[in-house]
Each structure stands twice: as structure tokens, then as C-alpha cells.
């Protein structure tokens, strides 16, 4: 994927490209599945962000600051002012660019927030649990282990499972475009990751104070999302 184009996706969505630029980018999108998938993610994130601002403005701002910090997207000084509208304004002003992993992180986090994840976030925040750093790690995964420790695991795990289920459903629809052998290999690899996630969850239950186990579970969950997204991008390119 071309970083040059990646940096212009926000411009494209915001209608800030000339017709010639749009034509060139659209030509590129037809050739680059990963870039096209990134655009879709960006579009979804933007839509979720728009709905969030109305539903949970305070939480959206708070969450977005955490997301922006973790994904390394530092907004300009004036937009760090709490009085400045959060998610929507950031998207409107769009003065930072994001990478594909960053989109995943932001998208999942926003999905959590809009789909009930705010409950998770509040639960964690009320216990003084800081959202963990790490850049590019899906935010729902970052929250999950903390929540598990405090007994809110079912909610957060459900969010992760739903995120995975969404991707699996899309993949199921795209399945016919993939070679059956590829499908089999992907399913085998998903099974490997699922076993790793299950082992990590069990280990964390045994030793809930372990930073390592928490981080490891986060990472393994992120790998599953990464794999699903990658396969989805491939299937759409075929």
C-alpha cells in the first residue's frame, strides 16, 4: 500500500481533493485492496464518530483523547482543549494522518463506545484503570483484561467477540472469491490464534495480576483481528 495515498484518504472522504486527484486515487483504490479496506475502515470510523458525538459527547471526547494518544495521533494544541469538540471536530479538521493499524485501533474503540463499550470504559475508569498504551493495539483488547480482573469480563469479551463476528460474517460472504485451500489455511490459523487466546485467558484467570499475561492476551487478540482484516482485504481484491 502506498503511504502517499494512505495519507490522502481523509482528504478523499472529506471531499477535499480535486477531481483529477479523486480520479487518480480511485484508480489506485481499484488496484490496492489494503488501501481500499483502509478507506472503508476510515469511513466506518467516521460514521461511528459522528453518531458518538451525539450519543455520548463527554465519553466520546474522553475516549478519543485516549485513542489519539495511543495511536500516536496528536491533535493540534487547540484541539487538546477539553472545550473543543472531540471526535467530530478531529475528523472534520483532520490534521493528522493514520495508518491501517491505527484505523483498526480507533475503529474498534469507537465501536466499543458506541455499541455499549462505554459501559466497559466507565467501569474501568471508575476503578482508576488507565487505558493502556502500545500504539496500534486494538483498544477493546486493551480494556478487556483490566475489566476481566474486576469482574466485568463478560461485557468486554462480548464486544471483542462481536467485532470478530462482524468480520467473520463479512468474510463468509466473500468466501466464494477465495480458493478453498486458502480458506482452509485461514481457518486453521484462526484456530491456532483461538487456542492461544483461550490459553491466555485461562492463564490470566489463574494469575490476574500478571502484566505479561494481560499484554499477551491483548496482543493475541489483536493478531486475530489483523488476520481477519487482511483476509477480508484479499478477498475484496479478487
Amino acid at each position, binding site marked *: 500500500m502506498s503511504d502517499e495515498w494512505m495519507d490522502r484518504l481523509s482528504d478523499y472522504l472529506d471531499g477535499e481533493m480535486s477531481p483529477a486527484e479523486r480520479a*487518480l486515487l480511485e484508480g489506485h483504490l481499484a488496484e490496492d485492496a489494503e488501501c481500499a479496506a483502509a478507506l472503508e475502515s476510515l469511513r466506518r470510523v467516521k460514521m461511528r464518530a459522528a453518531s458518538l458525538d451525539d450519543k455520548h459527547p463527554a465519553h466520546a471526547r474522553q475516549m478519543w483523547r485516549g485513542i489519539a494518544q495511543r495511536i500516536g495521533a496528536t491533535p493540534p494544541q487547540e484541539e487538546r482543549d477539553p472545550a473543543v469538540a472531540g471526535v467530530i471536530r478531529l475528523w472534520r479538521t483532520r490534521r493528522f494522518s493514520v495508518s491501517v493499524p491505527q484505523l483498526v485501533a480507533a475503529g474498534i474503540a469507537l465501536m466499543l463506545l458506541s455499541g455499549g463499550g462505554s459501559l466497559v470504559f466507565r467501569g474501568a475508569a471508575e476503578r482508576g484503570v488507565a487505558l493502556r498504551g502500545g500504539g496500534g493495539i486494538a483498544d477493546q483488547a486493551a480494556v478487556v483484561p483490566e475489566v476481566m480482573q474486576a469482574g466485568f469480563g463478560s461485557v468486554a469479551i462480548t464486544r471483542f467477540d462481536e467485532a470478530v463476528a462482524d468480520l467473520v460474517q463479512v468474510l463468509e460472504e466473500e468466501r466464494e472469491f477465495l480458493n478453498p485451500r486458502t480458506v482452509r489455511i485461514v481457518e486453521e490459523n484462526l484456530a491456532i490464534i483461538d487456542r492461544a487466546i483461550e490459553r491466555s485467558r485461562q492463564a490470566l484467570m489463574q494469575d490476574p495480576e500478571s502484566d505479561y499475561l494481560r499484554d*499477551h492476551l491483548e496482543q493475541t487478540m489483536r493478531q486475530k483481528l489483523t488476520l481477519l482484516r487482511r483476509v477480508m482485504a484479499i478477498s475484496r481484491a479478487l
Partner: protein
Amino acid sequence: MFHTLMALWVTIAAPVQTSDTTIRVEEGMRLNLRNEAGEIRVTTWERHEVRVVLSRARGVRIDVERSGSVLRIRSALDLGFRDEFRTRGRRGRFDDDEVDFALTVPVYLDLELYGVETDISVVGMNASVTAETVEGSILVRGGNGLVMVHSVEEEVRVERVRGRVRASSTDGDVWISDVVGEVTAESVDGNIELNDVDSRQVTARTVDGDVVFDGPIHDDGRYHLSTHDGDVTAWIPAGTNATVMVANFDGDFETSFSVMLRGLRGRRFHFTLGDGSARIELESFDGDVYLRRRR
């Protein structure tokens, strides 16, 4: 910044068993090639030209288009031969025919190569290289700038790169050697081996496989090697200044030199080598961690 659309169409008429054409290029250009099935082989020469030699191309039309600074090459089933091929899927992919591309290009030409049932090899470049395939292997030997490779089913190899490397395989091994620059390597069901990697930023992680790193450790460097089910081995030179963080759940730690373990907590511990300036993280959930002196 965007170029006026200029299109140069070169259509190589089908049927062809082999075909040979040459297109003039200049510095600053990028070649974008997609080949659904077969092979893409790229080598270099001194000329400011791209030579495209095709084989096994019966019934396949090759379109070459120059648009601004991008040279696009596509293989497509020629209409006159469509009936000879079985199609697959709504988008009409054909699975009976393969095209082998042998390209000779100037070393400065940035490359974007995509395939499905396609093996890709690129040798001798001094430019950025992107290579992605689903069912084939990838070899990139030589590169400068960003080298990004991914295969779903087969191994990927990256060698002799000066720049940033991002290499991943879902179901295969990742081999990276003789690289100066930032390295990110990922696999799910495969090993990762990094040899002679001179980098200040290394991230290597797999789920089911071993991870090996062999290279110098820079004082301001950060090195993260992790696996879920496999061993992690780091070969580091004498005189390394680093804080080494080790973690595992069900495995052992072994070092070929004595260290003073500190901070034993939550299945993690650390120790310091020299002034501790670099950061090395070695993690295996279900395997052993080895720290060795470089040979």
C-alpha cells in the same frame, strides 16, 4: 503533485506463448504489476527501460499503461479465448492458466507487485518494494526505502535491504537477513528468523513458531521478540548496553552468560547489561527464552 493523466497503452495481442516488449522509464517512476497466477521475477539492468518477457501466456492479454509516474502492467483473459478457460467466482477469475512475468528494470524503479497464486522474486533493487501474494512465496533480495512483503500461505524472505522492512506470512516462515533499518516481522503459524539485522527498532512476533534474532544492539534501540507457542532466542554481542525484559508462562529462561535477575513479578523479570540503555523484550508464553552471545 499529481500528474496529468498520460496514458500509453501497449496491448500485447493474444495468443502468445512468449512475448517480449520494452518500455522506457525514468527515475521517480513506480511500476505496479498484478498477476493473478504464475510467477513474477524481477531483475535489474543499467538501462532506463523496463523489459517485460512473458511466458505461458496463451490466451492472455497484457495491458501496459503509463499514467503519470506509474507504469501499470496487467494480465487479463483475452475475450477471444474466454471460453477455453473455466472461470471461478463472480469476478471471473480463471484458474487453468498461468502467466510468468520476467521483468528487467532499472534499480531505482519503485515496485508494487501483487499476485494470488503467484510466486514473486525481486533481486538487485535499490528502491522500495511492495510484494503481496496469497498462495505463493516471496523473495526480495535488495531494496532501499520501504520493503513490504506479505504472503498468506508461503514463506517470505527479505535480504540485503537498507531501509524499513515489514514482512509477514500467515502460514509460513519469515526470514530476514542483512538488513540495516527498522524491522517488523509477523507470522501466525510460522517461524521468524532475523539474521544480521542492524536496527534500532525490531518487532518480531508469531503465534505458533520460534523467533530468532541475531544482530547488534544499539544503545537507543528497542527490540521486541515474542511468540505464544515456541522458543525465543536472541544472539547479542558482548558489550551490549541493554535492559532485558523476559517473560513467559510455561517455559524456562537460559542465558549463556551470568546475569543478575531483578524485578521478578507477574511472570516477568528483567536484568541489566552494561548501562542498560537499550530495551530488549523477550517473551514466550509456552516456550523457552534463550539469550546468547553472538558467534
